[in-house]
């Protein structure tokens, strides 16, 4: 374990650590463009040069491994002058179009210019012309004049997705990132190159020109698009999500997210929202919540009286949070003791080797874990459909479909609902067969909720409300709680956290987890 001194501070690190990482471990941040912890070392931007005693040349901190007794200086005049020179070089052919550049506000060139930039340019020549808006793929567009040729995007495509669509073309100051002939940057993770780009050269076609980044509020949350549960940041303005970007979590998604997840917020604005409770009562009517609860409770009570709870079937989509699932479990145990449940499978394609899970629901693991107590009552959707046909099921309650906005999955397609005595839908978006339901209650989407998802590996992760509900929706667990207490359960939780605390108390797998102290590593017990 070598010990070295960086700017007078002593630090001991593992063999093979680079100066940049060693410095980072004691809080000295060395500026850099091309270095990225997840990618191979390129050492081409030369911004991270530092002075190492007994070495004649300045060394790149990103690539130089430490050795015992090394003495490193990161702020000497020589280092600062070299960085000034690098900044000058990077900016001579740069368009300096910050006022119209999407990267402004999160641009490394801007940030480092504050410290290492010059007030005026010494460059009096004509700038190198390059491509301004080359379409790399369905999500990514390239500006060659803003590009600083750090090759992060190229390395990402070679090393992480292993698809290798991009490479450097031409030489010298005419070199430019390009795409190989007859290829498109359309791998499942192409959006990540936009996050990787330290400048405004690569922009997301869905986000560019939509907003200045400093106007956006950042909310840490979880991607709802598959079982992986990538940690993400939702960028919000005017009560609307503008973009989603990955948030580093070494155990779940590292620094990446897939394109499907990156654009999952678009579903929220694409489908028709269920804005208020609707009851089919001779004619379709919108009711307020109190009337709606009265109606639904009466209907459920009469079914219970006439046919017993065995005639009620619940379809629980694993788009719901753990808290929702816990309240549903309470109702299943207390007032629907003989009801059956099915948890539809929603799968697209195959699991890939990086992040994407074929299971496109964010909380299957959590729902199954919580429903383990009633596992004998879980039947498949096909069996449920059969029982409907045979008349054993008189009433259907569909929970959570479309909670993430992904309501294009026609899971109920083959299950006729209209002949049933009573059918209840609790979800966020109008299902394709909305007219068949006796009653529909609007639930909040994942973007409006507090709660937790359990990913396929058992990591329990909190989601946070990014936006306020624009309609009368309520969290699903609150709706279930209200219905349950009107029929006969006894619970009165006030917040998602109190539901989770109770869940942790009652459920073996969740024991010892605390809602407000969930970390990157919190996971359910096997």
């Amino acid at each position, binding site marked *: 374990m070598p010990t070295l001194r960086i700017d007078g501070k002593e630090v001991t690190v593992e063999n093979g650590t680079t100066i940049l990482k060693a410095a980072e471990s004691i809080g000295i941040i060395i500026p850099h463009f091309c270095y990225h912890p997840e990618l191979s070392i390129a050492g081409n931007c030369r911004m991270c040069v530092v002075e190492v005693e007994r070495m004649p040349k300045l060394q790149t901190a990103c690539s130089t491994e430490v050795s015992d007794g090394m003495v490193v200086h990161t702020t000497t005049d020589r280092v600062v002058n070299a960085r000034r020179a690098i900044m000058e*070089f990077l900016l001579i052919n740069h368009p300096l179009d910050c006022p119209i550049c999407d990267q402004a506000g999160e641009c490394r060139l801007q940030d480092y210019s504050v410290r290492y930039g010059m007030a005026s340019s010494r460059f009096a020549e004509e700038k*190198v012309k390059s491509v301004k808006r080359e379409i790399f793929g369905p999500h990514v567009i390239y500006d060659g004049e803003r590009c600083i040729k750090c090759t992060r995007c190229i390395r990402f495509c070679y090393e992480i997705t292993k698809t290798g669509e991009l490479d450097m073309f031409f030489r010298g100051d005419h*070199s430019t990132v390009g795409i190989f002939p007859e290829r498109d940057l359309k791998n499942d993770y192409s959006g990540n190159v936009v996050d990787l780009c330290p400048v405004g050269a690569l922009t997301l076609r869905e986000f560019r020109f939509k907003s200045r980044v400093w106007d956006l509020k950042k909310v840490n949350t979880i991607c709802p698009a598959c079982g992986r549960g990538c940690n993400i940041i939702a960028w919000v303005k005017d009560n609307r999500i503008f973009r989603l970007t990955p948030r580093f979590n070494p155990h779940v998604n590292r620094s990446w997210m897939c394109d499907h997840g990156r654009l999952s917020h678009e579903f929220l604005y694409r489908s028709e929202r269920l804005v208020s409770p609707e009851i089919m009562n001779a004619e379709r009517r919108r009711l307020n919540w109190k009337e709606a609860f009265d109606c639904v409770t009466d209907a459920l009570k009469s079914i219970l009286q006439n046919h017993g709870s065995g005639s009620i079937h619940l379809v629980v989509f694993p788009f719901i949070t753990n808290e929702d699932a816990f309240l549903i479990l309470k109702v299943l145990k207390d007032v629907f003791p003989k009801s059956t449940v099915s948890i539809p499978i929603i799968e697209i394609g195959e699991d890939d080797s990086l992040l994407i899970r074929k299971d496109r629901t964010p909380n299957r693991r959590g729902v199954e874990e919580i429903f383990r107590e009633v596992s004998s009552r879980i039947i498949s959707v096909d069996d449920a459909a059969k029982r409907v046909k045979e008349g054993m099921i008189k009433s259907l309650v569909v929970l959570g479909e479309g909670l993430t906005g992904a309501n294009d999955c026609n899971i109920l397609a083959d299950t006729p609902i209209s002949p049933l005595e009573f059918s209840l839908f609790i979800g966020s978006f109008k299902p394709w067969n909305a007219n068949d339901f006796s009653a529909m209650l609007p639930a909040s989407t994942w973007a409006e909720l507090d709660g937790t998802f359990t990913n396929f590996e058992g990591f329990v992760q909190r989601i946070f409300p990014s936006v306020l509900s624009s309609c009368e929706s309520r969290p699903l667990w609150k709706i279930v709680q209200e219905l349950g207490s009107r029929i006969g359960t006894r619970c009165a939780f006030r917040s998602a956290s109190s539901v989770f605390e109770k869940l942790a108390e009652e459920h073996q797998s969740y024991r010892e987890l605390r809602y407000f102290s969930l970390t990157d590593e919190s996971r359910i017990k096997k």
Partner: protein
Amino acid sequence: MELILTKNIHKLNSESIDVYLSGGGYRSHEKALKTMTPDQVIEEVKKSGIRGRGGAGFPMGGKWGFVPKDDSRPHYMVCNADESEPGTFKDRIIIEKDPHLLIEGIIIGSYAIRAHLAFIYIRGEYVHGYNILKKAIAETYDKGFLGKNILGTGFNLDLILHRGAGAYICGEETALMDSIEGKRGNPRLKPPFPAQIGIFKNPTNINNVETLANVPAIIEKGGEWYSKIGRANNTGTKLYCLSGHIKRPGVYELPLGIPLRELIYNHGGGMLQDDRKLKAVIPGGSSVPVLTADQVDVLMDFDSLQAAGSMLGSAGIIVMDDSVCMVKATHRITKFYAHESCGQCTPCREGTGWMEKLLRRMEAGRGENGDTELLYDVAQNILGNTICPLGDAAAMPVMSFVEKFREEFEFHISNKRCMV
């Protein structure tokens, strides 16, 4: 003086294996393979004191010694025949006139570093040289000097001839390795050095054509003998490439340490036009700092030229008389490096282009006050801050031309024309 590298070139059909054999060729590799261990070969080369002829002047024996001995990975021997430095045409003579001297050197070198696969990376423009080498390698295979079980010693060696595609940067050893691997030739970060992680991540040794062509003589006559040629720490003979304003340009084989004056006036026949005066000499290919006329008494070897503030480099000596505009000369050199910069690292990519544009403007009579200082400053900002030596190669001539001929740059700016 006994010729080592050019002893065969005047023979008829000197490139054929029969002529080479009749001149005593392929005796050294037999001696090495049959009577010496690889370590003894390295020892002999170390004794000779020979330093790399590609430009950097690193001792060859030491370089061979860096290749790990107890390593299960395959080792590779590479001959760098990507001779592209402006003013340099020495390797070409060996390749075209005496290819077997080179091949014999490669076989001995491969044996010494325990390589069973060797490459010759030849620049794409050397089409004639490529054809000759191709034929020479085929002949060598036919004689059994290459291939399996060479001369019954159990030593196997294959030799691959690889053509470059026209990039100057592929003469830089790590870019050359990338190019051999089939990638775009970009220099790699060092460390790791090629001896540890080279071609296909295996230990690799790279030597220049001229360096390897010395090996047969060293093995035949001993390192001791070789070390007596030239000067201390600068042993052996050297191929000097004379070009520019000189009566007899060409390749001259002479011992290291010969005075530059002697080269220009005795061997080169003096200035091309007798009424012109010597103005400047670039002693080691266009990338090294220029010498002024009063510096021509310098000895042409690694150490003396370094002491004089320049470098031996590839010994491509470009002679300029007083008709040369130094701004134009600087621009021409800089244009080459700006064109050949791989574009990988910031200072070289942006800086060489900037210098080229600045010089173009000055040369066109649109220079402004302060441009000379700016030019010098840009060059200084490139120097030492790049991944590979191309940045230095672009910066050093600019800095030296400005240092030594500043008044010409200033004249160009204020009078909008050449001083000469």
